[in-house]
């Protein structure tokens, strides 16, 4: 490298032996960058930043996670409840994955709009697609690890895609599973691969940046830099701009982490995996939805090719076709700014992608299948017909002579993020009960930015659980010691724990024995096991209530409504099987649990009048606490983080303005 000299002897000593400093200066400081990049060019660095967060949080999560099908679900809940800041690490990780995809999607669409895939940047584009494909695989593998219902059935469906291939398909699937169904060996290897692939992505990112630095950045005008007047050094101009972007991005990301951590997830994934029962409506993670729609669009065989194979091939083809893009679009003009027709088709393509995403999120209906088919056809037509045709026929606008001439205005960055966030969020609920849910008077106390649990309601809710619900249901993820948060004293907790017997042993004679529970023990169901519970309850197992609120869409209102949803006179036209009750809000109306909540079924220790509404509201408060014990810590930390980020981002914005004020 050319004549690097520092005043520092140690730096020079290292430099002579390993030229890291000149390399850094060359590629991170002096690196000439077009001076007209708009904010759409921030998303590459944002994605790299997010990748680092994902790897860091993932590493620390892995220290507490157990990749065993019998233990995985509970180990994740242990992270959420017992590991110091475990809930923060997990929510940073799961929401970080969604953020990573949003950023990368915007980054890809940016490339499509400004023609960043064209010569000489084809290889840069290819590496990018490879990153995207690896991300898809990593995201899928990671989603399996919590071993909830969606994890399990997602894994089953996605691995079964490979069975579509003739002859070898079934053997591939057996190989992927390491057995004859998705099971413990599958989980083990998925964990190993989920740990490996992010480092593969990291390597690909290094290649991506290397390729970028060889061909230099594209820019909104799509013309090459003509000379030094068009370029500015990367540092400080784009370092400060990227840092400012990180500040803005972190505020959006943290808003999800602290206030809507399960926004991108599915409630069903808080139900432990059950290989015997598929949830009524399963969806993949939101970032696969457009491709999922393409998969489902193929419903009839074509000559001798089965529909199943067609769907799978189309799904993979939809991504692989991106590799051919530099040749399908042979227009010499890169940027859509100067391609009036392409610009319109670009937006049509974006809208089409959202339509596909929407179709992928919803249960299949004839209408939606037709829409998916049209959208799928258009997706491929865009690449195979529209782009080649445009390349030949489109009248492009005259290109400016150099970058220094015009200035292209950036569009608001946040807009697309919001569209991405809300447009794709699929709700997988297929509640057959269509009645609008009841809401308690005055609402629940823990909503909103600063929401906290109403302590008195929490304690009353515990009393209701203890006196009524606990006769059939456990809250096995809650230990007696946790009841300190409900407001019980250590002595009360000891006394309550001692009421219950738990199995311990073996003792010195090798026999198991019962002993009174201690505060460290968990609040188990009164039945020895599920079979025993089912035998007593006519085949239905009273579910564990630890996560019941989190495992249902609109959980608090749903459970509240369910408890009060036993009308005195059930509608005559609904047939309820023998031994079941009618419940207005239960999917399918036929519920095993008889009505439990009546006025004065408990006598509150604090003298509150025990109306049935009051009882239901209180017990839902307790159950929400059981599901989200970290909620108060989460929200209060969130407020502090947001205040900090607002300050940092404001400073970075001011600094960026100072640094940039003489450019343009």
């Amino acid at each position, binding site marked *: 490298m050319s004549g690097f000299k520092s005043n520092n002897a140690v730096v020079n000593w290292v430099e002579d032996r390993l030229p890291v400093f000149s390399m850094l200066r060359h590629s991170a400081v002096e690196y000439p960058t077009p001076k007209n990049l708009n904010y759409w060019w921030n998303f590459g660095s944002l994605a790299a930043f997010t990748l680092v967060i994902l790897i*860091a*949080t993932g590493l*620390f999560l892995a*220290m*507490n996670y157990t990749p065993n099908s019998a233990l995985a679900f509970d180990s994740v809940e*242990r992270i959420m*409840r*017992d*590991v*110091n*800041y*475990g809930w*923060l*690490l997990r929510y940073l990780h799961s929401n970080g994955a969604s953020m990573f995809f949003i950023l990368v999607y915007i980054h890809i669409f940016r490339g499509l709009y400004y023609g960043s895939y064209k010569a000489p940047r084809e290889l840069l584009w290819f590496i990018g697609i490879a990153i995207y494909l690896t991300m898809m695989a990593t995201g899928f593998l990671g989603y399996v690890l919590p071993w909830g219902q969606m994890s399990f059935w997602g894994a089953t469906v996605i691995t079964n895609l490979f069975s579509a291939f003739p002859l070898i398909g079934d053997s591939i699937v057996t190989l992927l599973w390491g057995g004859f169904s998705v099971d413990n060996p599958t989980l083990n290897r998925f964990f190993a691969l989920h740990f490996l692939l992010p480092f593969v992505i990291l390597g690909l990112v290094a290649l991506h940046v290397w390729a970028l630095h060889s061909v230099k950045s594209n820019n909104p005008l799509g013309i090459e830099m003509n000379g030094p007047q068009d370029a500015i050094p990367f540092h400080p101009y784009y370092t400060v701009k990227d*840092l400012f972007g990180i500040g803005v991005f972190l505020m959006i990301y943290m808003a999800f982490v602290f206030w809507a951590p399960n926004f991108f997830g599915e409630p069903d994934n808080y139900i432990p995996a059950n290989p015997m029962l598929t949830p009524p409506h399963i969806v993949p993670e939101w970032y696969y939805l457009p491709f999922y729609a393409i998969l489902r669009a193929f419903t009839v065989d074509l000559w001798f090719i089965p529909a199943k194979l067609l769907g799978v091939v189309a799904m993979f083809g939809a991504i692989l076709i991106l590799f051919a893009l530099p040749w399908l679009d042979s227009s010499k003009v890169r940027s859509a700014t100067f391609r009036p027709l392409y610009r319109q088709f670009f937006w049509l393509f974006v809208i089409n992608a959202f339509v596909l995403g929407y179709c992928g999120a919803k249960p299949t209906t004839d209408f939606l299948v037709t829409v998916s088919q049209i959208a799928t056809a258009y997706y491929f037509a865009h690449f195979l017909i529209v782009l080649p045709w445009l390349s030949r026929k489109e009248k492009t606008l005259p290109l400016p002579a150099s970058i220094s001439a015009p200035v292209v205005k950036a569009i608001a960055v946040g807009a697309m993020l919001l569209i991405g966030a809300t447009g794709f969020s699929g709700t997988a609920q297929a509640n057959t009960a269509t009645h609008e849910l009841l809401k308690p008077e005055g609402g629940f106390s823990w909503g909103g930015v600063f929401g906290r649990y109403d302590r008195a309601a929490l304690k009353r809710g515990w009393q209701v659980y203890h006196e009524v619900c606990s006769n059939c249901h456990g809250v096995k993820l809650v*230990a007696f*010691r946790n009841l300190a948060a409900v407001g019980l004293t250590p002595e009360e907790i000891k006394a309550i724990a001692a009421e219950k017997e738990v199995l311990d042993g073996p*003792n*010195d004679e090798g026999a198991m024995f019962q002993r009174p529970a*201690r*505060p*460290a023990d968990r609040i188990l169901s009164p039945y020895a096991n599920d079979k025993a519970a089912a035998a007593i309850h006519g085949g239905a197992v009273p579910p564990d209530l630890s996560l019941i609120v989190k495992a249902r869409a609109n959980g608090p209102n749903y459970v509240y409504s369910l408890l009060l949803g036993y009308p005195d006179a059930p509608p005559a036209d609904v047939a309820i099987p023998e031994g079941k009750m009618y419940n207005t809000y239960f999917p399918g109306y036929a519920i095993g649990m008889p009505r439990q909540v009546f006025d004065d079924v408990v006598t509150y220790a604090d003298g509150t009048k025990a109306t049935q509404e009051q009882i239901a509201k209180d017990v839902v408060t307790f159950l929400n606490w059981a599901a989200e014990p970290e909620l108060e810590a989460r929200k209060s930390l969130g407020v502090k983080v947001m205040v*900090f980020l607002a*300050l*940092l981002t404001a*400073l*970075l914005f*001011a*600094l960026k303005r*100072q*640094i940039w*004020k003489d450019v343009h």
Partner: protein
Amino acid sequence: MADTAKNAQPSAADGQTRRDFLLQAASTVGVVGTGIALWPFVHSMNPAADTLALSTTDVDLSAIKPGQAITVVWRGAPVFVRSRTAEEIASAQAVNLSELRDPQSDAIRVKNPQWLIVVGICTHLGCVPLGQKPTDPRGEWGGWFCPCHGSQYDTSGRIRKGPAPKNLAVPAYQFTSDTTVRIG
């Protein structure tokens, strides 16, 4: 700025100080924030709430005859519970404290002279010393012998010879009845 003396080149100088100030402020806030953000990662490696809660073990002493010892698990590590014979108690009490590397009288190491309860981890580098079984070597002082590097402990679990610096640790415990003890 109100500084009238420097009116000659206001914008350049102003811009420079303003820029320096912003750079310093933003870097400070950024570095402090990053530093604080590392804490949750580090703290996640500390013992979790459930681990901390599992800190008591109940031991039934009724079946242990004088001269016998049992090993129980407390917080994932062995605890030695030894029912000492009269001679063992006498020899533990008779020691001249000035001879000891880690001087402690036997009286402060036990709650009931018959029962010696110590954490069974050599204070040298963490091996489990021998001496619980009648067939084990117990060293010259009749307590425990660590096979790893030869530390020897007496009948009060005090270090007498070898590289270990400290006596075997005494865990917190209470007698919950005449024949049961709760460790932790």
